[in-house]
Structure formats: C-alpha cells, structure tokens
C-alpha cells in the first residue's frame, strides 16, 4: 500500500486514526502495531511481515538479555547473534543475488558454470523497507550493548518502534530514542494530533511526489530506456531531471511520513534540509537523507575510528563508510561506485583548503554539479550504461538535436525545479499552522490534482532500498 493511493487515504488511514483516537495505553500501542503490520502486508507480498516480525522478536529479547548480562563475553555473543541475524537476513534478501551474479560472471571467465538450481535459490524478492528496519533495530541493539540506553521492556511498544507504518518502508530511519519515548507518551495521554501541520505537510509531500517526481520520471524514462545515444543537451537534461526526480520523490515521501506521524502526535526526524543548497560535499551529506547519514556516522564511521586517527586512516574510514553506504542503497556494484564517488568528493573536499576561499555561489553550484554527476552511477543499470551516459554528456553523440515537445517540457520542469530547490524554504520551515488563504487554496488545488493523478501512480524510488 502506498501513501499516494486511495486505499491508503480513503480506507486505511481514516480507519486507523478514528480507532486510535479512542484508545489509550496498551490497546493503543497494540492497534498501532497491528495497523503497521497490515500496512506492511499490503506493501508487496504478505510474507514480508515474517522477516520483520522475526527481527522484532529476536532483537526485543536479545536487548533484554544483553542488559541483564554483566559478563562481557556473553554480552558480546548476544550482540554478535543480533548482528549476524540482522545482517545475515539483509545479506540473503538483498545481496545474495548480487554475489551470485558476480560469482557467476567470475566463474564464467574461468569457463565454469554455476548450477541453475543454485542461482534460483538466490532469486528472492526484496522485502520493502528491510534496509530501514534492520538498521533501526541494529542501532537499538548496539546502543543497549554500549549501555547508552535501557532495553525496552514493553514488547508492543518495541514492535511499534520497529514497524510504525509512516516510516516503515522508506524512512526516515528513526532511532529508538526518537520514537520509543513518544510512543510511551501517547500511550499515557492518548493521541494529540497536529491536524493542520500534519495534513498540510502530507499534501506538500504528495504534490512533490505526484506532480513533480512522477512527471519528471515520465519524461526521463524514455530517454534512458534504450541504448544511450543522446545528444549532450538531452543527456544533461535527463541527468538534471533525474537529480530532481530522486530528490522530490524521496523528500516527498519523507514529508508525507512526517506529516502522518504528526497526525498521531509523533514527530519523526527531519530527513532532508534543502540538500541542493549545500555548499560542499560534507554539507550535502548533512542535508541529504540525514537520518541515514547520521546513522552511518554514529555506527560505522566512528566505530572505524572516525576523525581520531591519522589522516590516511581517516580517509580510509570515510571511503569505507561511503562505499558501504552506497551499497546500502541497492544490490548493484553501480551503487558502490556511487558511494565511492561521494567518498572521493568528501576526501577531496577535506584536502582542499582552497574550497573555502570560493564564493558561496561557486561552492553551491560546484557541489550541485558534482552531486548531480554522481547520480549517473545511481541511475545507471550497469557500468556500460553509465559509461554511455558520460559519453553522451561529453557530446559523443552531438551537442544538440531538434527538440520535441517532451524535451521542452523536461527543460521547463528542470528550470522550475531548480528555482524551487534554490529559492523556496524547506517544507519543514514553512509556517503550516498559519498559512494564508491564497497558499491554502494553491496547496488544495495541488492536492486535488495529485489525488487525480496518483490513482495509478508509480512506486517510490526508495522502496527498492
């Protein structure tokens, strides 16, 4: 079930909210957990709930045992058990296909075959959102093991933390300290919805997704569908269009998730802070998919040694974090290349004191250009396609060709998007509780149009991660 579907807006959400408003205490938490499981069952295949429930149960008990256990050895074993379970599940569902494909290609070079039966065993459907909830429970277990947080003793509350449907499938990647206390509070006091702020933010997210991201996708996909032989102008338009598509798609989803959270009286963490206004690669990662960036910083980069080590080691830590962060996004080596690209940008930025001497405008434009070039790796289905795209960008197939209506529409959308991301405030900065009549009517018209267009809409790009 998608947020941008009538099933969700007309049936699921009103029913869940109406019942939730009448409940308190454990029944309220049970209802939220149940609703989340039902939501997830309709997110693709019903069996998606099985690995999620397994993770929830295992990590709930492991955390309690870790807290009870004082001896370091058994505590480490319990941590290892949770890590192996979570990462093993992620490895099987998400990466086994990649590893088998890679092994197959490697063996083929040696003239050997992988048995078809073996390959089929690893052709599994990726449960939506598995990367998100796995990382959430991992951070929880690690924090309990580090002694930073007590174990949650209320199973339903813990299940609500893992599965709370607004953030379940595509984030924001919410930490236990951000959600568990809020669930405890609403259980005590009942739900106190922030109606206006929630609905308005949801509507903004819906419009971002349906009116901008999906329109861009419809114009870009045909350009990138066949063998890439685009003239430079189209290749750049496709690239810029994709840069905006992925931003409006994912930030739109995040806005919707945060808006929905507000309807339950819960504030989910911010996930985007106008990333295309960033003035450096480091600044970009403080603004783009912030909850993942902070997770990677806290649980990977710092664990590897962070900044408190030699410059060479620090560069290695940065590269390793970004490569793994890239792979988190998808089971394809192109994602690792995307992570490497960003790792290299971060390392270069740290090693270039002259960057700070550039004017703000240059810093912003250069950052945008470098980030946008990186999207080639993210969007390309293979290195061959990525290479073809770079060749097109460089003008290998001419600079420009006669423009069609679609190309002009794409150009207009790209210019419009550029104006929005540079000139408009972030949606979380808008005074949604006290919008004037004209903006309200404008947003209402955008919402109504989105509802009409979303009927048979596409999926969110980040669902695949």
């Amino acid at each position, binding site marked *: 079930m998608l947020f941008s579907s009538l099933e969700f807006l007309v049936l699921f959400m009103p029913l869940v909210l109406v019942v939730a408003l009448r409940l308190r205490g454990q029944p309220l938490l049970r209802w939220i957990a149940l609703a989340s499981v039902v939501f997830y069952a309709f997110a693709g295949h019903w069996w998606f709930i099985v690995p999620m429930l397994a993770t929830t149960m295992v990590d709930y008990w492991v955390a309690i045992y870790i807290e009870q256990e004082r001896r370091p050895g058994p505590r480490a074993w319990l941590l290892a058990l949770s890590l192996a379970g979570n990462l093993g599940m992620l490895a099987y569902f998400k990466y086994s296909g990649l590893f088998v494909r890679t092994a197959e290609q490697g063996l083929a070079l040696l003239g050997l075959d992988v048995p078809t039966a073996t390959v089929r065993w690893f052709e599994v459907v990726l449960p939506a959102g598995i990367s998100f909830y796995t990382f959430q429970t991992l951070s929880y277990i690690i924090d309990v093991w580090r002694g930073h947080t007590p174990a949650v003793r209320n199973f339903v509350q813990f299940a609500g933390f893992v599965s709370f449907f607004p953030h379940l499938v595509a984030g924001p990647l919410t930490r236990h300290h951000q959600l568990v206390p809020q669930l405890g509070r609403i259980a005590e006091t009942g739900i106190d919805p922030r109606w206006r702020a929630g609905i308005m933010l949801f509507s903004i997210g819906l419009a971002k997704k349906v009116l901008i991201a999906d329109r861009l996708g419809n114009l870009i996909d045909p350009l990138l569908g*066949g063998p890439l032989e685009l003239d430079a102008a189209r290749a750049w338009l496709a690239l810029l269009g994709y840069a905006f598509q992925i931003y409006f798609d994912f930030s739109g989803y995040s806005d919707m998730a945060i808006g929905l959270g507000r309807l339950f009286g819960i504030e989910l963490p911010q996930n985007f802070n106008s990333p295309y206004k960033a003035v450096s690669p480091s600044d970009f990662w403080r603004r783009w998919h912030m909850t993942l960036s902070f997770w990677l910083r806290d649980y990977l980069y710092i664990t590897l040694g962070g900044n408190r080590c030699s410059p060479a080691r620090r560069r290695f830590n940065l590269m390793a974090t970004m490569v793994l962060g890239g792979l988190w996004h998808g089971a394809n080596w192109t994602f690792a290349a995307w992570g490497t690209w960003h790792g290299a940008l971060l390392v270069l930025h740290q090693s270039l004191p002259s960057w700070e001497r550039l004017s703000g405008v240059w810093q912003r434009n250069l950052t945008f250009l470098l980030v946008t070039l990186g999207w080639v790796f993210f969007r390309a289905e293979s290195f061959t396609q990525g290479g073809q795209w770079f060749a097109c960008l460089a003008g290998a197939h001419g600079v420009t060709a006669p423009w069609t209506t679609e190309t002009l529409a794409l150009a207009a959308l790209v210019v419009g998007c550029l104006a929005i991301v540079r000139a408009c405030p972030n949606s979380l900065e808008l005074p949604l509780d006290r919008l004037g009549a004209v903006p309200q009517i404008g947003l*209402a*018209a955008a919402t109504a*149009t989105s509802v009409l267009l979303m*009927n*048979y809409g596409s999926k969110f790009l980040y669902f695949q991660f």
Partner: protein
Amino acid sequence: MFGATVALLLAVVVAVNSLAAWDRLTHERRVRAAAVQLQPGQALLGYRDSDERRFQQARLEVVPRPRVVAFGSSRIMSASTAMLGVGSGEFYNAGLSGGTVEDFIVLWSVLERRGALPDTVVLAIDNWEFNRMHPQLRWLEWADEVSRFVDAGAASRAPFARALGPAMYRWYQLKELLSYSVFKASLSELRRLSRGRPRRGAEIFESLRRDLVPESDVAGRRALRADGSIMYERAYVDQTAEQVRSEAVRYAASFRGNLGDFQWDAERATRLELLWSDMRARGVRVVAYLPPYHPAAWAVLSRDPRNAAAVRATATFMTRLADRTGARFANFTDPASIPCVEEEFLDGSHSRDSCVERSLRRLLD
C-alpha cells in the same frame, strides 16, 4: 479553507465522471444487446470499420461459456470451432489485430466477471510483444482496466484478498471516479455528445445491426464468424507462393518483423505472469505457444544473432513461466518444428488454416 477547496474540486471530477460512466453503461447495454444477434452460422462483414477490441469485449459479454478460448494477435485469428473439432459454442477466438498482453487481460477480465471461465485457454504470444522498443499503443484505450487488473493482482497477493474479489472490483470501479485519465476521457466524450456527434464505439452497434450475413454469403470478403474467428478475403488467400515469399522476406526486414532492436519489456512480462497465474489459480488449463514464421522470414530472422537472441529470450521466459505455473508451452517460431511449409502461409507471420490447425492440435492433444 484547504479542506473545502480539495473537497469541492474532487466533487466536480466525481460528478463529471459519474455522468460519463452512466452514459457509457447505457451504451454498453445497447452494444451487448446488439452483440447477441450474431448467431452461429452468421458472419459480421465490414468489421474493419468497427472497433475490434470493443467488439470482442461485447461478444465475450454475451456468448455462452466457451470451453476453449484463444487469446492472441491476428496470427491466431483464423483458429475456428471447426478447426478444433469441438461443438458449436464451445470455442471462442478472442484474437485481435496487434493484440497484446494488456488486451488479453481486459478480455479475460470479462469472462472472470461473468463467471464464464473456460476449461482451457490458448495463448498465442508474439516475440515483438516483449520488445520495449516496439511502440504498441492500441491497448492504451483501456489502460484503466489493465491497471485495475494489475493493481488487484498485486493486492490479491495479500491473505484473504482473493475472497474479496467482487468487492475489490467495485472498489476499483469507484476509484476510477477519481482518475485523471478517466476524467479526461469523460470530458472529451461529454463534449462530443454535447456537439451532437456520435459517441465513440457507436460503429460497433451500427455494424452489428447492419452487417450480419449468413457465412455462406460472405463471398470472399473479410468477415468475423460468431466464434470470433476471421475469414480472410479472397485476394489475400489467393496470393501465389512467390508473392507470399517476397512479402515474407520484406516483413522479416521490416520494423515490425525485425527484432534487432529488441529490449526486454519486463513490465509486460510481469503482466503476462500475473494473467497466467490468475488463470492457473482459477483452475484453467493454459497452453501457450510462439506462432511460426514463414520459412523464408524465419531464415532471415534466425540468421541475425540479435533476432535469434530476442526469440530465445521470449522462449526462455515462457518456458520458465510454464514450469512455474504448471502450464504447457511450445516454441513453434521455427516452422519446421510443427512442421509447416511455405505453401501454408499467407505472409511472413500469418499461416493458413492447415498450419494453424496442426499447431493447435499439437498443443491441445
């Protein structure tokens, strides 16, 4: 202010779509009533002026439950009741010119809704259907129906959803009241009517009222039988073998025939899988095949490794799908595999009755 504006705008859309839906339902009732008039032994002439898709949809609404139904492109359209050796009314040919998976979905949905499921479905699949680079737009006129099936198929993967089938169908109908594409179509249809022009699809109604003749009176003209199968015009059937051969070679090199630009259309493949699984889940026997090419066309196509790779991709997918769903599949792309000879073809991709009959018998035996 915000809520009232959203509600007002959506209410206008629902009102326009409801009005157009009411008009469409009235029209469809009239077409169905006319479609009943086509009886066994009769043929519909001049159907080229009609909307073939809407004709088949209307016929499937009214024919008695067939035991065997064929879906496919024009390459299966000549398959008839006599060819299969079954009783009158036991076979229906739902083939269409340029028919694609999406068309099969909509026509299958009609049988599903009526509870008139056949025992056996024959699917004639063309290689070009899975070519993403091959523009196929005809099915888009019922894109909403296709989306409804695909969405419902996805939803039906959830537990208990299948039991809710009829309710889900109603829900998807209601959803269309809030669909932009339906809204656009409704506005255009209402505009036509307000200008006094005939509504879209009116020609089927007229054709069914005007152009019905006994099969014996067809006299070498192109016509459709009551079982949906086609009777080709004399000029097409009477071509010499040389004429057919040169046409076949030309076809193999043409945009439509050539598969050199083949890129796998995963979306269409998923739709076929969904349709096929739905049929199997309802206990229907599915037999599918890739129809044969004219030997000269096949020689040209198979010489080019890109064409051969395209045929292989389709056949591999179909074989796996058949294995997964317990269906039967045969790759007859190479005419020698049936076998059919040059004289049994009408052009590069359409075979004569004898070849079609042999293919079907091999599949169904």
